[in-house]
C-alpha cells in the first residue's frame, strides 16, 4: 500500500507457556494509512493487543515475535536495536492503554509523567537548565489544555488518583500525544468508561487526529464505536484477521460469517420482541489449533472444505475476508 504509514506483514507472535504454545497472533497483516483511523474489533483474546504490542516492540517474555515484517514510515522496526526502538516509541508511535487507572503510575505526579516523555524525546527543547524545565512545563500545560483539562498548572502537581476516570484517560492521551506521534495506538480507550464519558473521549481523539493529522489504530470490541469513528475496520478472530475493509462496507455488508454473527448478536431496541441470534459456542483455545478455519466450530455455514487452511480473499476493491464462501469458488 503506497500511502501506508504502518505496514505489518504476516506477523506471528507466540507465547511459550507451561500449558503449551499459544499462537496469539497468527499471520496477521495490517496496514494503517496516513491520517486514517483504523478500527480493530474482535472478541477478548483474539490477539488485538498482542498485534500492536508487537508493533511497539513490547511483547514481553514468554512471548516473542516469531516472524513477519513491521515497516513503519519506511523503517523496518524489527531490525532496530532496543535503543533505537525506544526512540521510536513515544515519539513516532504512541500508545494508550485500556485502563488508565492502572496505566498511570500511581506514585508519580501527572506532571512528571508528562514531562518525562518530553524529556526523553523532544529535541526542540533547550539543552539544559531552567530554560529546559520551563519549556517542558509550558509544553505539559499545553498538552493538558489540548485534552480539555482545566487549570492545568495546579493539576500537574496532582497524582492520578486525584482525577476521575475520564480525566485519567485524557491525561494518558495527553502523554501519548506529547511528542506529536505519527501513529496513535489506542487500545480500548473507552471500555472502562461510562457512555457519556466514552463519547467525550472518542470525540477528543477524533478532534486531535484531525488537528494533528496523525493516524489512529483504535482497538475496541464495540462495533458501534467503530461504526461512528473509524474509516476502515479490521475484524480479528482467534489470532487471525477474518475481515477487513471500509467501515461502511464491513458493517453494512459483512462477508465473513463471524462478522455477520457478531452484528446479528448485538441486542438493539429495534429488534425488541424478536429473538436475537447469538453465535453459539465460544472462542477456541489458542493452544494446538488445527490448520482449518478457526470459526469452523461455531459457523452455521460450515462445510467440508473449511477443514483446510483458509486464506484471505478479496470481497471488494478494498474489502477482504477469510472465508471460502467468498468469490463463488466454493466447492
Amino acid at each position, binding site marked *: 500500500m503506497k500511502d501506508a504509514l504502518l505496514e505489518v506483514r504476516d506477523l506471528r507472535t507466540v507465547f511459550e507457556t507451561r500449558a503449551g504454545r499459544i499462537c496469539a497472533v497468527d499471520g496477521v497483516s495490517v496496514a494503517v494509512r496516513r491520517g486514517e483511523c483504523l478500527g480493530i474489533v474482535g472478541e477478548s483474546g483474539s490477539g488485538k493487543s498482542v498485534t500492536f504490542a508487537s508493533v511497539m516492540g513490547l511483547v514481553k517474555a514468554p512471548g516473542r515475535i516469531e516472524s513477519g515484517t513491521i515497516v513503519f514510515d519506511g523503517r523496518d522496526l524489527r531490525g532496530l536495536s532496543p535503543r533505537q526502538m525506544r526512540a521510536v516509541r513515544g515519539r513516532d508511535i504512541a500508545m494508550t492503554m485500556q485502563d488508565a487507572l*492502572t496505566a498511570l503510575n500511581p506514585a508519580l505526579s501527572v506532571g512528571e509523567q508528562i514531562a518525562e*516523555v518530553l524529556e526523553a524525546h523532544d529535541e526542540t527543547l533547550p539543552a539544559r537548565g531552567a530554560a529546559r524545565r520551563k519549556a517542558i512545563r509550558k509544553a505539559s500545560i499545553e498538552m493538558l489544555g489540548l485534552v480539555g483539562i482545566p487549570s492545568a498548572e495546579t493539576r500537574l502537581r496532582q497524582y492520578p488518583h486525584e482525577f476521575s476516570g475520564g480525566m485519567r484517560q485524557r491525561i494518558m492521551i495527553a502523554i501519548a500525544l506529547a511528542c506529536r506521534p505519527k501513529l496513535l495506538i489506542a487500545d480500548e480507550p473507552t471500555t472502562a468508561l461510562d457512555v457519556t464519558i466514552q463519547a467525550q473521549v472518542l470525540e477528543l481523539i477524533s478532534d486531535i487526529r484531525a488537528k494533528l493529522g496523525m493516524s489512529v489504530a483504535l482497538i475496541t470490541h464495540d462495533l458501534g464505536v467503530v461504526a461512528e469513528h473509524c474509516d476502515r475496520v479490521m475484524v480479528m478472530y482467534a489470532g487471525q484477521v477474518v475481515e477487513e475493509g471500509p467501515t461502511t462496507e464491513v458493517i453494512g455488508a459483512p462477508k465473513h460469517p463471524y462478522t455477520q454473527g457478531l452484528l446479528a448478536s448485538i441486542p438493539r431496541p429495534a429488534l425488541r420482541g424478536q429473538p436475537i441470534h447469538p453465535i453459539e459456542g465460544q472462542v477456541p483455545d489458542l493452544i494446538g489449533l488445527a490448520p482449518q478455519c478457526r470459526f469452523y466450530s461455531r459457523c452455521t455455514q460450515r462445510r467440508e472444505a473449511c477443514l483446510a487452511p483458509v486464506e484471505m480473499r478479496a470481497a471488494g476493491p478494498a474489502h477482504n475476508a477469510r472465508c471460502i464462501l467468498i468469490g463463488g469458488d466454493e466447492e
Partner: protein
Amino acid sequence: MSLSKLLERIAQLVPVLLGVSVIAFTMMALTPGDPVQIMIGDQAITAEQEAQLRHDMGLDRPMVERFFIFLGNTTHFDFGESFYHKRPVADVIAERLPATIELSLVALVVALATAIPLGVLAAIKKNSIFDRIATVGSLLGVSLPGFWFGILLLMLFAVHLHLLPVSGRIGFDSEVPSVTGFLLIDTLVAGNMKAFGDAVAHLILPAITLGLPMTAILMRVTRTSMLEVLRQDYVTFADAKGLSRRRVLFRHALKNALIPTVSVAAIETGSLLGGNMIVETVYGWPGLGRLVVESIFLRNYPLVQAAVLFYAVTYVLLNFVADLLYTVLNPRVKL
C-alpha cells in the same frame, strides 16, 4: 496528615501500651521466684532484714496496688528503680539503648542496602543464575540459626583469622567523648578516624549476624513485589513512552515496589530490636536485649516492665514511620 489523624494514631497507642503493661506486669508477677531471695543468695539475713529489703523494693504491697502504682508512675515516665542497680530503671535502660539502637540500625541499613539492589537485580534477571543464587542465598539467610552462625563467624574472623575484634563496641585505645551514645557518630564528631574504624570493626560481625535474616527476607519481598510491579500496566506504558530502561526500572517500578519492602522492614526492625539478645550475648554487645533477659532471670520487675514498654512504643513508632514512608511512596495513601 491531619491533626486529628495524628491524635488518633497516638490514641491507638494507649490500648496497646496498656495491654503490654498488663501482660508484662502479670507475667512477671506470676513468675515464681523472689527478687529478694535472688539478691541475697546464700548469704545470711534475718527475717526483719528481709522484710526491710522487700519493703524497700516495694514488694510488700499487694499485687493490685503494685500494678496501679506502676501504671500511675508510668504515666509520668517514672518506671521505678532497678532492684539491682539501685538507680532509676529509665537511666539504666537509657545507658544500654544506644548500643542496641546503633546495632539494630546498622543491621537495618546494611540489610536494606544489600537487599534492595539484590532483590531488584534478581527480579530483572528472573530465572537467571544470579536469581537462583540470590534465591538460595536468601533462603539460607533465613534458615541460619543466629546463635550458631554468630559463633561460627566469631571463631573464624576473630579467633582464627584475627581480622576483627571478639567482643564489645570499641577498643580502649580510642576514647571518645560521649555525645550521642552512638559510637559511629561520636567518633566522627570527635574527628577520630581511627576510633571510627575501630567502632566499625566491632560492628561488622554483630551487624551481619543480626541483619542476615532480615536481608534475606527483604530481598525476597523486594524481588516479589518488583516482579509484581513489572507486570503492571504502568510499567508497560512507561516502556511504551520510550523511556530509558533505568528510568522505567528505578523511577517507575522501584518506587512502587518498595511499598511492601517498607512495611516488612518496619515489622522486621521491631524484631531486630527485640530479638537481638542472642547476638548481644554471643558478641558481648552491651545492649538492652541482654540486660532484659538477665533481668527476667533476676526477677528485676521494674526493668523488665519498662523495657517491654519501650519495645512496644518502638514497635508502634516504627510502624508509624513506615506509614509516613508510605505516603511518600504512595500518594494514594493519606494518613
